[in-house]
C-alpha cells in the first residue's frame, strides 16, 4: 500500500455509439498516463459509448465482465495502470435491464463496478427511461488505495459518498457527463463531498457538444479540505495529472473530524422523514 498516487484525468469527448473509436482513444490516453507516471487514469461517464445514445443503448450495452471490459483490462495490463471508465451494462439475468455503470480495471484484471444510484430524469435528462438504478456502494481495495466510484448526479446526494467513505474509501472517483448550465452546482458539490467525508475526490467530466448540450469539462482532483489539487480546462479536451498523498487525510480529518462526529442515530429519522415527503 502506497501513500502517494498520481492520477490522470482524461477529459475526453467521445464518439457517439462508436465503441471501437472510444476504446482506441482511451487506449491512447492510458499510454499517455503510463508515460507520465500516473497509476490511475479516469474517463468520463459512459465513455465507452458516449452519453446521449438514446435507443441505441439497447444494442450497445454489454455485460460486465464482457468484451469491452476485457479490452479495457488488456489496456490496463499493457500500461500497468488502473482505469475507471463508464459504460452501459446489461444485466446477465434480465436482457432489457441496463445500468449506467462505472468500471474499475487494473493490471491485475477486472476489479469491480458501481451502478449509478441516482438517475436524472428531469430537464434534458432521461436516464430512468433507459437505466435501472444501482443499490450498492462497494469500495475496492487495490494496490493504489481504497477506491469508491460514483457517477455524476450522485454527487447531489451526500448519502452515496458518505456510504463509500464509511465503506473505507480514501479516494472517491466521480465520473460525469454534466452540461454547462450545471457547472456551478458540480463545482460546489464535488468540494463539499470531499470536505464532509475527509476524503480525496477525483471528478472527470465529459467535453463536447451533443444535441445542444455542451459538456463543460473542468475535471479536478479535490483534497479532503476542499482544495483543488489539479484542474482541467473548461469545454475542451484535456489531460491533467495530479498527485495525492493519502497521509493528508489524517491531519485534515483531525482538524475537521467529520467522520468521527457522525451521528448515526439521525439516519433513522432521516429515513422516516424522507419516506413521508
Amino acid at each position, binding site marked *: 500500500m502506497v501513500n502517494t498516487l498520481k492520477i490522470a484525468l482524461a477529459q475526453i469527448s467521445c464518439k457517439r*455509439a462508436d465503441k471501437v473509436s472510444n476504446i482506441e482513444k482511451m487506449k491512447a490516453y492510458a499510454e499517455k498516463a503510463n508515460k507520465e507516471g500516473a497509476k490511475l487514469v479516469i474517463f468520463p461517464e459512459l465513455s465507452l459509448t458516449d452519453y*446521449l445514445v438514446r*435507443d*441505441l443503448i439497447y444494442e450497445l450495452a454489454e455485460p460486465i465482465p464482457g468484451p469491452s471490459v476485457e479490452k479495457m483490462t488488456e489496456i490496463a495490463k499493457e500500461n500497468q495502470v488502473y482505469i475507471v471508465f463508464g459504460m452501459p451494462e446489461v444485466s446477465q439475468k434480465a436482457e432489457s435491464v441496463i445500468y449506467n455503470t462505472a468500471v474499475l480495471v487494473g493490471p491485475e484484471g477486472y476489479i469491480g463496478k458501481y451502478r449509478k444510484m441516482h438517475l436524472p430524469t428531469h430537464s434534458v435528462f432521461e436516464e430512468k427511461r433507459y437505466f435501472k438504478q444501482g443499490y450498492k456502494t462497494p469500495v475496492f481495495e487495490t494496490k493504489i488505495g481504497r477506491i469508491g466510484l460514483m457517477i455524476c448526479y450522485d454527487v447531489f446526494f451526500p448519502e452515496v459518498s458518505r456510504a463509500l467513505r464509511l465503506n473505507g474509501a480514501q479516494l472517491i472517483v466521480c465520473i460525469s457527463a454534466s452540461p*454547462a448550465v450545471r457547472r456551478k452546482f458540480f463545482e460546489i458539490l464535488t468540494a463539499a463531498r470531499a470536505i464532509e467525508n475527509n476524503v480525496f475526490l477525483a471528478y472527470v467530466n465529459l467535453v*463536447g*457538444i451533443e444535441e*445542444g448540450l*455542451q459538456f463543460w469539462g473542468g475535471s479536478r482532483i479535490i483534497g479532503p479540505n476542499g482544495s483543488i489539487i489539479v484542474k482541467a480546462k473548461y*469545454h475542451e479536451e484535456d489531460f491533467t495529472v495530479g498527485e495525492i498523498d493519502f497521509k493528508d487525510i489524517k491531519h485534515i480529518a483531525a482538524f475537521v473530524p467529520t467522520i468521527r462526529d457522525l451521528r448515526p442515530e439521525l439516519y433513522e429519522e432521516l429515513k422516516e422523514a424522507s419516506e413521508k415527503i
Partner: protein
Amino acid sequence: MTQNDQKVKNLKLTPQVLELNWGNVAERIKNFIRDYVEKADAEGIVLGISGGVDSSTVAAISALAIGGKRVLGLIMPEEETYNPKDVEDAKRVAEKFGIKTEIIDLSNILKAFYNAIPNFNEQDRVSKGNIKARTRMICIYYYANAQNRIVIGSSDKSETMMGYFTKWGDVAADISPLMDLYKTQVRKLALHIGVPKEIALKPSTPALWPNQTAEKELGMKYEILDLILYGLERFMSPQEIANQLNLPVKTVEEIKARWIANEHKRRMPLTVKIQYRTPGADFRLPRT
C-alpha cells in the same frame, strides 16, 4: 453568490432577470455552430438576412464562429414589403462581418404562386404572407442543397413560444442557435457581438405585409412580453406575473393560452401510435 443566483431565488420580474453573461453566451453559441457545421461536414452556412435584429445577430455570430467567407446571407426582398433600408441594413451587417450575400428578388416567384393557386384570396394576408415566408425557405434550402451548407434559423424564444412564425417557413432550419434567447436578450447579444446599434434595437417585422410590426401584432412591447414568458417558463401563475408587472391578469392568461396552443408549431407532426416505435413519439435515436 452571483447576481444570477439572486434572481433565480427571488423571481422578481425585472429586466435584470433577463441579463446573462453575454460573452459566455456568445462563446457557447459559436461553439455550437462550429461543432454542428464540422460534424455535418458542411462547406458552410446559408441563411436569410432581412436587416432585422434576429437574422443580423445569427449571421454575425455564424461569421464569428466559422469565418464570414463560409457564411452566405440571402437577401430576399419582394415588391409588396420592399424596404430599401432593410436591404441596406442587411448589406451593412454582411459587410461588417465579411459575409457573402446574394440578392434574390422574390416578386416574380410570389406572383406565380398567387396566379397559380385557384381561388387565391388577395385579402387573406396571413395565408398570403405565409407564402412569402415559405418561399424564402425554399430559396435558402436550394443553396443549402446545392452548396452543401447548413441552414441556420433566426427564430428567437419569444417568437417561438408565442407561435409567432410561419410553420415550415421562417422557422425551418437545421439549427436555430438563438431559440433559447428571448427577443430582448437577442438585442443584448447583438450589441455585445458588434451588430450596429441601430439594427440591434430596431422594431422587428416578419415582413409578410407592408408596415407589419411584431410588437403591434403581439399587442405589447417585447420588454413586457419577455418578462411574462420568463415567468411562465419558471412555473409562475398568471396572477403572480400580473401582480408583479402591474398588468391585468387577463392579459397574462391570454399570453399563456397562446403559449400552450402553439405547441403544434414547435413539434414534429403527431401521428397515430400503431407500431412498436413511432416517429416523434417513442422512436428516440440520437441526433448526430
